[in-house]
């Protein structure tokens, strides 16, 4: 019993020296995640690519060499490497480089915004369903299951078709596609967390459910859900491009990668490289988002 008092503070030597040791601020969880993410070369490369594309889209009016809407009937479908049109020109003789830069604005917007909205709506629903349980869970999750019965592409097309073409309507329909997916992930993570001892300990401390969810549950649920949501950005971009390709999203002459892919498809035998460029942009952007979310996932794996 006498040993206990000296051992209580850890090892006695350190305890004596304690006042001289500067109080080390422990890195928070997110600090250590960021540190591990920065050390992941693939994730960092993907992040740089995304950053470059985002910056190029934002500053398109400053860096684009030409007007994205002004065409020239005599200079249609120039090849890549042309002296004036570096990346060629499209079927109406508009500069491809300019249009690809401008198109990034709408494509990124339509790729990211539905996922952001669905992240908030879906995690709220999922945490509610997972934590409340009982009939609330049953109602929410069965409705989610109904949405899961439809393939996401088909659901997006059907909703967009029903709502009518337009940017806003495609964002709405894409959000509706992603909410059930995020809800399901958030629900399953919440159910796992809810049964942890620390949540039960928090509940028996007499705290009200909102406090328990806010302090004990959310921090552990939002991480995995966030990773899942970032992986949806690429899907969202492809779906948004698909909607535009089908004429349900952005309307011409507005530049957007999916729409450009559509209008250029007639030229695929004449100038296949130029016709494929918007597709290449979609591919690079979505794979970068996927690699980044992959890196984020491994950086967030809690090690003891």
């Amino acid at each position, binding site marked *: *019993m006498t*040993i*206990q*008092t000296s*051992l*209580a*503070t*850890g090892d006695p030597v350190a*305890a004596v020296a*304690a006042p001289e*040791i500067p*109080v*080390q*601020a*422990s890195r928070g*969880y997110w600090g250590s995640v960021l540190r591990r993410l920065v050390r992941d070369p693939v994730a960092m490369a993907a992040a740089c690519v995304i950053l470059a594309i985002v910056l190029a889209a934002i500053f398109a009016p400053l860096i684009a060499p030409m007007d994205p809407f002004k065409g020239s009937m005599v200079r249609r479908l120039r090849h890549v490497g042309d002296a004036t049109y570096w990346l060629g020109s499209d079927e109406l003789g508009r500069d491809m480089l300019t249009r690809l830069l401008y198109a990034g604005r709408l494509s990124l917007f339509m790729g990211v915004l539905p996922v952001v909205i669905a992240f908030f709506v879906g995690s709220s629903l999922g945490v509610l369903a997972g934590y409340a349980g009982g009939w609330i869970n049953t109602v929410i999750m069965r409705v989610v299951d109904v949405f899961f019965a439809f393939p996401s592409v088909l659901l997006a097309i059907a909703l967009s078709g029903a709502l009518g073409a337009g940017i806003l309507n495609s964002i709405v329909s894409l959000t509706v596609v992603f909410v059930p997916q995020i809800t399901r992930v958030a629900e399953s993570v919440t159910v796992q967390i809810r049964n*942890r*001892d*620390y*949540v*039960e*300990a*928090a*509940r*028996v*401390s*007499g*705290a*009200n459910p909102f*406090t328990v969810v806010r*302090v*004990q549950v959310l*921090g*552990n649920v939002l991480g995995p859900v966030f990773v899942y949501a970032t992986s949806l950005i690429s899907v969202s971009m492809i779906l948004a491009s698909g909607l535009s390709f089908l004429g349900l999203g952005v309307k011409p002459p507005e530049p957007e990668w999916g729409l450009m892919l559509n209008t250029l498809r007639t030229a695929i035998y004449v100038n296949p490289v130029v016709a494929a460029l918007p597709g290449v942009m979609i591919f690079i952007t979505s794979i970068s988002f996927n690699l980044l979310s992959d890196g984020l996932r491994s950086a967030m794996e*809690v*090690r*003891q």
Partner: protein
Amino acid sequence: MTDLDPRDRGGPAQPLLTVDGLVKHFAGKGGLFGKGPAVRAVDGVDFTVMKGETLGVVGESGCGKSTTARLLMQIAQQDKGDIVFDGELLGSRALDLKAYRRQVQMVFQDSYASLNPRLTVEESVAFGPKAHGLSSAAALARAHDLLRRVGLEPRRFGGRYPHEVSGGQRQRVNIARALALEPRLLILDEAVSALDKSVEAQVLNLLTDLKQEFGLTYIFISHDLNVVRFMSDRVMVMYLGRIAEIGPADAILGSPRHPYTAALLASQPSTDPNARLEEAPLTGDPPNPINPPPGCRFHTRCHFAAEVCQTREPGLDPVAPAHFAACHRAVAGSGHPDAPPVPLAA
């Protein structure tokens, strides 16, 4: 120990906790739609805990120890039965759930799982007081006091995350967290079982000291009989959702009256090589709690089982002062051939 606590109502003679007919059946899974047969995890348990004592609870896995703890904490809801805390019925107007929980807290077995990995140690300890309306600064100050009291220097450990401290230190944090609401009853559910022996000893000493200092009452659940012997004033032995035997620790662990308790004691490996057992004191698994055997629940594994044991379930009867056992063999007039003779006066 029981003096000077303004929350004390009935004085030292009134039990702190009285459990009456506690029943918890878990609905089994089975069939396509219907619910299967219920698992009788806790099947009619009555006991009392006196103020300032430590009640040890022992039994093998699946006997209902942890379910009992969870029922006492109201993490799970009992199907039947009452919990009376210091003379007030839980759920009555005088004692609502929130008031009850402030006075009863629990330390879990898994020290890592019972701390939120995203919160620092001091945040975890301060959570309860804050939830009960203390300001952040006051809650943090109380957390620091408690951390210091359980032997963790708050300046060194307060800002750390659970994975940055050792298992023993984590369990100290859990104890501090449980004490943060100034409870009167602390339920320790296998609280030291996951720790290695030297750390376990330190934590047990800490618990003994804290009990003195704060006038606490413990329910100490463990499968380690040595630890229970060290900690407990009284011991309760559970088997298949029921109490097999309850009484003073010396009596239960010294002269057990229930053959199951005797088998538990005999199952401890002896340090004396000559006293080594050639035969297992108890063979087979406990029967399925979905369908407990009729009569005495232990008769399927009992060496002394007689006819009466298969037909009539023994009650928890007094066999010595303050010592109760649920065994026909120990009770006069039960019909068991080995039962003591009926005293003439009765």
